[in-house]
């Protein structure tokens, strides 16, 4: 099986099949990340689409390293652009409020699952948990992607994971 850098190199030469293989490999991760960040499946998939289109345009700038981290950086930027367009500017800090997602009454009555538990975290915690826990980036990669200090990312992940576990346990008990 060809490695990601090999495929990216071929894609940079204009090989569409190689790029399609990269999309196939990473679509789950990118869509999952975008959906969790945006809090909506449809919006998340739109962001993921734009992410891969941007990746195709900029594939020649991929200079090796983890392809996941590279594509997640693009996804993160596309998410921020989408947020700017939505005029939902919220400071990413520990005091940030929890963003309420548009949920129907039926969905609100549904059992709290992993996704919903994630949505109860603060914005910054959710971003860090999505990047490190759900997407599988290292703390350093997540810090590079977001531009936040490594210590901040670590502490958000730690607190986020603890809260997530507590919420999931409570759900299971209920």
């Amino acid at each position: 099986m060809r490695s990601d850098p090999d495929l990216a190199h071929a894609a940079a030469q204009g090989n569409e099949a190689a790029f399609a293989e990269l999309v196939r490999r990473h679509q789950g991760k990118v869509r999952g990340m975008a959906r969790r960040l945006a809090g909506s499946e449809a919006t998340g998939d739109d962001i993921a689409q734009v992410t891969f289109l941007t990746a195709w345009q900029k594939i020649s700038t991929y200079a090796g390293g983890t392809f996941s981290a590279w594509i997640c950086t693009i996804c993160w930027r596309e998410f921020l652009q989408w947020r700017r367009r939505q005029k939902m500017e919220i400071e990413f800090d520990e005091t940030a409020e929890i963003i309420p997602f548009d949920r129907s009454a039926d969905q609100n009555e549904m059992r709290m699952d992993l996704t919903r538990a994630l949505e109860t975290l603060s914005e910054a915690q959710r971003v860090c948990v999505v990047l490190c826990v759900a997407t599988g980036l290292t703390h350093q990669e997540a810090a590079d992607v977001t531009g936040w200090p490594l210590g901040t990312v670590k502490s958000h992940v730690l607190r986020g994971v603890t809260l997530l576990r507590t919420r999931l346990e409570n759900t299971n008990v209920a």
Partner: protein
Amino acid sequence: MREQDAYKDLSDLFRAGDNALPAEPFTRQVMGNVRRQKMMRRLVVGSLGLAGAGIAALQLPALLGEWVGVDRAVTAALTTAPTELSTAAINQLSTAAMSNPVWLAVAAGAAFCVFAVSAFERA
């Protein structure tokens, strides 16, 4: 212990959800957009190129008009310029030689060197 090992259970849960997403429809959609974008770019670049070629073709008659007589002017300049230059050089050289004959020897040496180099270059 790697940092990811501390929450491997949660990562596995998330990954299971991501892996369940059907890849093919999404990939087809992305590649369709990629091809559309590629085609659009070709169209834009091609039409701009054609427009540029059209503008250049319109300028061609004026450009050719400028060329008429250029070869004659160049030929005349090439034939007259060396003569004028050499005349001026000989005048300067003779003036220098009259003031100090050593200059004549220096000029002869330099001319010999230039001749030697050009002879070797041709070989």
